[in-house]
């Protein structure tokens, strides 16, 4: 029963966080229409969430692309279908691994930092100070982060797609012995524009989840440094959980009904 209790409690907590995140999103959305005076802070956050994440996203995508290409190649070799490795790697990266891995990395790297920064401000009374100065903490803290993330994460996703395919091509060329022209032809034939757009759309959805969960946990932090640590940990765990759940929901609600047929790249 103890394990079931823990799972139940975690799920309830995740649902509560989602609810608080949704309320924050509604408040932030009002300010997103006219983000007065936040351009500088948006650029600052863009640097933190976009530029600083590039190395860690690149390493993650590179090795994921390499392992996908290697595993797919070894499996398809038995069916004499090595010529399709490029396309399968491209589709896997663009539709699934690119957006999901980027989001999970960003949830830890950026979302965790976001939650701890806001939680520290909360326990140090800085958020109270903003309120009594008549500065809306949602406009001041959440809007720049959300704006930076909804732009940054989809772009990082495309970057991860490209790096992953490049990693797959290297393994195809040097380990599996697939000629470059064959790898590229397979990519051209199987990969479609909608695969890239779909990955970016998922990046957009995940960026909203990461930001809202991180900010909601930060604002809910209580009780000094321990509270900051707890908020950071919860932010990373719940973001990752919700990303995986949302990934399936987007597949079944968007991909399957609307995108099963498309334009060839």
């Amino acid at each position, binding site marked *: 029963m103890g394990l079931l209790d823990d799972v139940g409690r975690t799920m309830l907590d995740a649902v509560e966080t989602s609810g608080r995140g949704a309320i924050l999103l509604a408040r932030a959305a009002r300010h997103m229409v006219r983000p007065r*005076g936040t351009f500088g802070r948006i650029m600052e956050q863009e640097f933190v969430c976009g530029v600083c994440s590039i190395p860690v996203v690149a390493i993650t995508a590179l090795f994921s692309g390499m392992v996908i290409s290697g595993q797919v190649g070894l499996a398809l070799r038995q069916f004499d279908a090595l010529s399709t490795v490029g396309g399968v790697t491209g589709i896997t990266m663009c539709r699934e691994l690119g957006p999901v891995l980027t989001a999970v990395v960003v949830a830890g790297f950026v979302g965790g930092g976001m939650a701890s*920064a806001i939680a*520290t*401000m909360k326990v*140090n*009374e*800085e958020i*109270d*100070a*903003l*309120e*009594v*100065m*008549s*500065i809306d903490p949602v406009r*001041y803290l959440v809007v720049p982060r959300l704006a930076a993330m909804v732009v940054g994460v989809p772009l990082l996703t495309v970057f991860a797609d490209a790096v992953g395919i490049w990693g797959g091509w290297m393994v195809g060329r040097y380990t599996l012995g697939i000629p470059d022209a064959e790898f590229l032809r397979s990519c051209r034939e199987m990969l479609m524009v909608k695969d890239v757009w779909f990955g970016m759309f998922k990046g957009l959805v995940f960026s909203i989840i990461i930001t809202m969960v991180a900010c909601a946990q930060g604002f809910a932090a209580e009780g000094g440094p321990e509270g900051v640590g707890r908020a950071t940990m919860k932010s990373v765990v719940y973001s990752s959980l919700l990303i995986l759940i949302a990934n399936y929901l987007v597949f079944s609600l968007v991909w399957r009904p609307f995108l099963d047929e498309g334009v060839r790249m």
Partner: protein
Amino acid sequence: MENAGQGPAIEAINLHKSLGGRPVLRGVDLRIGAGRTVCVVGCSGCGKTTLLRHVCGLLKPDAGRVLIGGRDISAASGDELAAIRRNIGVLFQSAALLGSLTVLENVALPLIEHGVRPLAKAREIARECLRMVRLEGYESYMPSELSGGMRKRVGVARAIVERPGIMLYDEPTSGLDPVTGATILELIRDLRDRMNVASLVITHDMEAAYRIADGIAMLHEGRIVESGPPDAFRASANPVVRQFVEGRSEGPMSGAHAAGARRDG
């Protein structure tokens, strides 16, 4: 505790508040006139900070109300709350400076966020406030590079930058050495004289209260049990006041103090 012929700048009427199921305020009545400084004293956990948080609208009372210049801050929300708060400056116990901004950026923040342009004008006003608290030359320092006393002075500069009519100080001398504490007290007195602000000072430091107050009120078990000018307060025969002023461990407050110490209010 107000000047004859003037309405109170701050008026708490029959304020009740419970936190975590424990009644903290049980019918607090307090009036502070323009240009007057009132110190609210009491043991840790007696509800002093809770009272201050009601006065600046960070907490809503369970019953009763707080009028700021005749406007009910407890019932206000949105733009009305923001407008009332712009007439209130708060020095938090920890100063609550934004750790990611320099001293000058911290002080100029309310002006910039409220649309004071050009930015050079906002910065010049902020520099003037820093001169008032004798911190010229520290504009580019980060809060982490300052001592506790300097941080509090920056907190005061930020609180007065919009020329409020009301100042709230939460334990302004706590954690400071006597000399630095005296500097802060001088600053509070100086601001009252120069800007004619109504000040509510939360403290448990009786020496500080005698030095700056026009009136002293004692909060005990959620109620104001004694109030009056410093001399009358010092001579009070109320056994609760006597025990607090004389700093004795034995007396009518012993039980309450032990209970209150479990949770600082």
